[in-house]
């Protein structure tokens, strides 16, 4: 391996396409004779469709067809084995309305304008309309599941001198990637080609082929550029199924772009959670018990489990622990994974509680964390593969200047503002999905890596090129990356911050196999330096085939070998298994981090702003520091939004997500951006993969809301346990 490319802050290889407007996102694709589809959503959340009057819409100009339950054709519920989907009920499967915005009809027309106009006059008559259940108080419908238990947390709690018992609530949040969900479906003799906004092309193919009841090999999913997803584009949603069904029925391509408003209704959101945290400690700060009991809301048809206790069992060092999770159903669309699912809302609760415990103990919150740092994963009773959380805390505290903190409420002031200093730890899982890859070395000196994964904006194109460049020594500019197509070897889902860790073994193996082929070829060529050599005595270095030990001084460029052999290319495949969800892992693998931050509170104008954030992340080896830094900075700013701004409101009477646009659902703008100082510890986690890289997509968001809540308490004396921390909670 030629070290050097891994760890370099290379500019993104797809950058030129993105800055010139030529990167083709899903809705940018078009086809001859494309028709435009616009779904009609229900305006009730609980009831049924009595009648659908489409006669007026049908007379509108440009109408191609209007689909509904009666004419859409057979659609099937996919088997659990097919893969993941949140709302498994096929669209139009029955006349029952379970949430506001549920699709009830699909208008297809010659132009987008025609379809939109006709959709607005489709008249739905409802019956049995009942008040929707969008109740905010969450009590599990069934006995919550026990996620993790050790020791006797109840007895330890009762016996401890210091204890807290608090409930934390996180709201529904919507992902709001800037790119709208979209689908361009084509159907011909070869089957379906579906251009989809998806973070998981392989899963999408496997699930949608069952919904459409066609062989898997007759469905091709293409996704070259995604305007990001944050989890909202992980699994298939109804609109994609409808576009495909319409394309098949009509025998012409159909494009469907979901509106921003519909994106609040039908493509998932972060589930609301209500979490009770009980912690107890000895007076010296030793954590004696932790109970974390969470309930999240789900839709009427799904089993969505937010898994708030994802990080709790391994993150906290205590002998007595209980984590439970329960669900309660509401008349809302299915929730889905959103950036850092489970751990992000979960850590808001547990890390806030930790802060409250520290105050109860009169201990510095950093000290409390250091004092209770576990030496192994107490839930699985296995060692950590690589855990440097304590160093995150000490480095972060040092860089922030935490020792200058005056703990009394409202005691720090600057420029007329009250300052609040807060901190929080964070953690996110590390694992690998299964992956296959193919690497080709071409006679013109270029290389190509092909893998059926996708780049959702995080930099996967560039990481893949770096891996091949590092392994082969071929310059990065000569490497072509092909992804985003199910015709390629099946690659990992872009979720869980796991793509980089997942592709490393498969790509390295594929590259080495290709290199081995080139070496083999070199030993067969007449009048060439290595004719008759044993391949074991040769090496592939910096794009050249050289003698091991370098003794002979002989070498030849690999592409000369190919040219001399009249071979266009040599290739190799690689394949690696999943480690995700292993029942008995040998090690506990996670990323860690700590946020330290300062907020400014101006009570006279009720203005709260985050001034600066110091974040230290232990995410294994960092493949591309600038790209990784960008992930963390983006997550920190999203964390500002989560803590202070973001909440989807459901109208209590209609069940409509009522602030369903980007003016009323407010996300952080650039003016809300704090100064950021991000550090990576860069300890390779070689137990996870050869390079020791984990992932950086989600961890930066975890812990941000609790750090801000603790800083707000420090400034104002108000402990906000229900997000977001809006103005009214502080007046």
């Amino acid at each position, binding site marked *: 391996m030629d070290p050097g490319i891994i760890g370099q802050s290379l500019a993104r290889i797809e950058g030129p396409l*993105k800055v010139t407007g030529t990167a083709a996102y899903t809705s940018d694709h*078009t086809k001859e004779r494309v028709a435009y589809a616009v779904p009609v959503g229900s305006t009730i959340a609980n009831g049924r469709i009595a009648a659908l009057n489409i006669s007026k819409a049908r007379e509108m100009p440009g109408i191609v067809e209007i689909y509904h339950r009666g004419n859409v054709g057979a659609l099937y519920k996919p088997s659990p084995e097919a893969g993941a989907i949140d709302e498994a009920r096929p669209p139009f499967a029955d006349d029952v309305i379970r949430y506001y915005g549920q699709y009830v009809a699909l208008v297809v027309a010659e132009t987008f304008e025609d379809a939109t106009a006709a959709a607005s006059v489709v008249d739905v008559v409802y019956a049995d309309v009942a008040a929707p259940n969008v109740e905010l108080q969450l009590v599990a419908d069934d006995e919550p599941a026990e996620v993790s238990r050790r020791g006797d947390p109840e007895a330890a709690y009762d016996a401890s001198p210091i204890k807290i018992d608090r409930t934390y609530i996180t709201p529904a949040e919507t992902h709001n*990637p800037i790119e709208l969900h979209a689908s361009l479906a084509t159907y011909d003799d070869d089957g379906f080609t579906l251009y989809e906004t998806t973070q998981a092309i392989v899963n999408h193919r496997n699930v949608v082929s069952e919904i459409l009841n066609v062989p898997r090999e007759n469905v091709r999913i293409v996704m070259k550029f995604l305007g990001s997803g944050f989890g909202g584009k992980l699994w298939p949603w109804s609109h994609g199924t409808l576009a495909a069904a319409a394309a098949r029925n009509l025998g012409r391509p159909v494009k469907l772009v979901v509106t921003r408003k519909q994106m609040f209704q039908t493509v998932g959101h972060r589930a609301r959670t209500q979490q009770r945290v009980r912690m107890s400690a000895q007076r010296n700060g030793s954590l004696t018990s932790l109970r974390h009991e969470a309930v999240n809301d789900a839709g009427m048809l799904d089993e969505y489990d937010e898994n708030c206790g994802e990080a709790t069992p391994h993150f906290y060092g205590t002998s007595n622990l209980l984590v439970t999770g329960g669900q309660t159903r509401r008349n809302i669309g299915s929730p889905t994974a959103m950036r850092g699912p489970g751990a992000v809302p979960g850590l808001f609760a547990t890390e806030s509680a930790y802060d409250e415990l520290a105050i109860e103990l009169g201990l510095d919150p950093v000290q409390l964390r250091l004092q209770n740092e576990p030496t192994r994963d107490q839930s699985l009773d296995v060692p950590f593969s690589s855990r440097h959380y304590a160093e995150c805390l000490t480095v972060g505290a040092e860089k922030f200047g935490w020792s200058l903190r005056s703990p009394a409420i409202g005691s720090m002031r600057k420029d007329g503002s009250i300052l609040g200093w807060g901190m929080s730890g964070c953690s996110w899982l590390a694992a690998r999905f299964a992956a296959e890859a193919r690497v080709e070395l071409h006679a013109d000196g270029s290389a190509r890596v092909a893998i059926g994964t996708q780049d959702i904006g995080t930099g996967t194109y560039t990481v893949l090129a770096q891996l091949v460049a590092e392994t082969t020594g071929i310059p990065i500019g000569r490497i072509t990356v092909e992804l985003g197509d199910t015709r390629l070897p099946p690659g990992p889902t872009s979720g869980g911050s796991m793509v980089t860790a997942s592709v490393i073994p498969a790509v390295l193996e594929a590259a080495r196999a290709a290199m081995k082929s080139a070496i083999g070829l070199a030993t067969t060529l007449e009048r060439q330096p290595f004719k008759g050599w044993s391949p074991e005595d040769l090496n592939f270095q910096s794009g050249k085939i050289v003698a091991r030990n370098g003794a002979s001084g002989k070498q030849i460029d690999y592409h000369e070998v190919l040219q001399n052999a009249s071979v266009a290319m040599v290739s190799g495949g690689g394949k690696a298994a999943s480690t995700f969800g292993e029942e008995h892992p040998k090690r506990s693998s996670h990323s860690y981090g700590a946020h330290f931050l300062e907020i400014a509170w101006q009570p006279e104008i009720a203005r709260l702003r985050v001034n600066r954030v110091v974040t230290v992340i232990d995410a294994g080896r960092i493949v591309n520091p600038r790209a990784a830094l*960008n992930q963390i*900075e983006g997550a920190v700013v999203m964390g500002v939004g989560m803590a202070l701004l973001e909440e989807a409101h459901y109208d209590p009477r209609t069940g409509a997500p009522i602030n369903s646009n980007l*003016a009323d659902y407010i996300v952080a*703008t650039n*003016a809300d951006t704090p100064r950021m100082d991000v550090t990576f510890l860069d300890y390779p986690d070689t137990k996870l993969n050869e390079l020791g890289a984990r992932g950086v997509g989600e961890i930066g968001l975890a812990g941000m809301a609790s750090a801000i809540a603790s800083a707000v308490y420090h400034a104002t004396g108000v402990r906000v346990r229900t997000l977001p921390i809006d103005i009214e909670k502080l007046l």
Partner: protein
Amino acid sequence: MKIAVTVNGERYERDVEPRTLLAYFLREDLGLTGTHVGCDSSSCGCCVVAMDGDRAVKSCTMFAVQADGHEITTVEGLEQGGKLHPLQQAFWDQHGLQCGYCTPGMLMTSYVLLKHQPAPNEAEIREAIAGNLCRCTGYQNIVKAIQQASTELAAEPAAAAVGS
């Protein structure tokens, strides 16, 4: 209605429905899909184009017929002679993008900003792009990219003008 619009220096005469929004005209009629649509409430900014070279406007909030007789510059018009505009180069160099979906709107907004204010300070840059949402980057590198372009344009002022 018949309209004549100059887009990236090229004149187009087209018959459009009055209700066709400029963003959809650019994307669907002219095939210039670099101009993106990300919302339905004039909130996200990824549809921003330059009108008559010196005004950043949201192309989702005006009808194509309103562009009749005007010059529109889209992200496809920034590159000149196969060379990236300094802003494009800077967004690439500085990692001023992740998913890239907001990038065309960011570029066109900053393109007009730098025409009016060749050397904006950080506060002015942040104010100028307040109407452009980015959900990925945390904005820091976008600001750095605009600063880089501002410095480079000061060194070679001719590069600032496009299509003129």
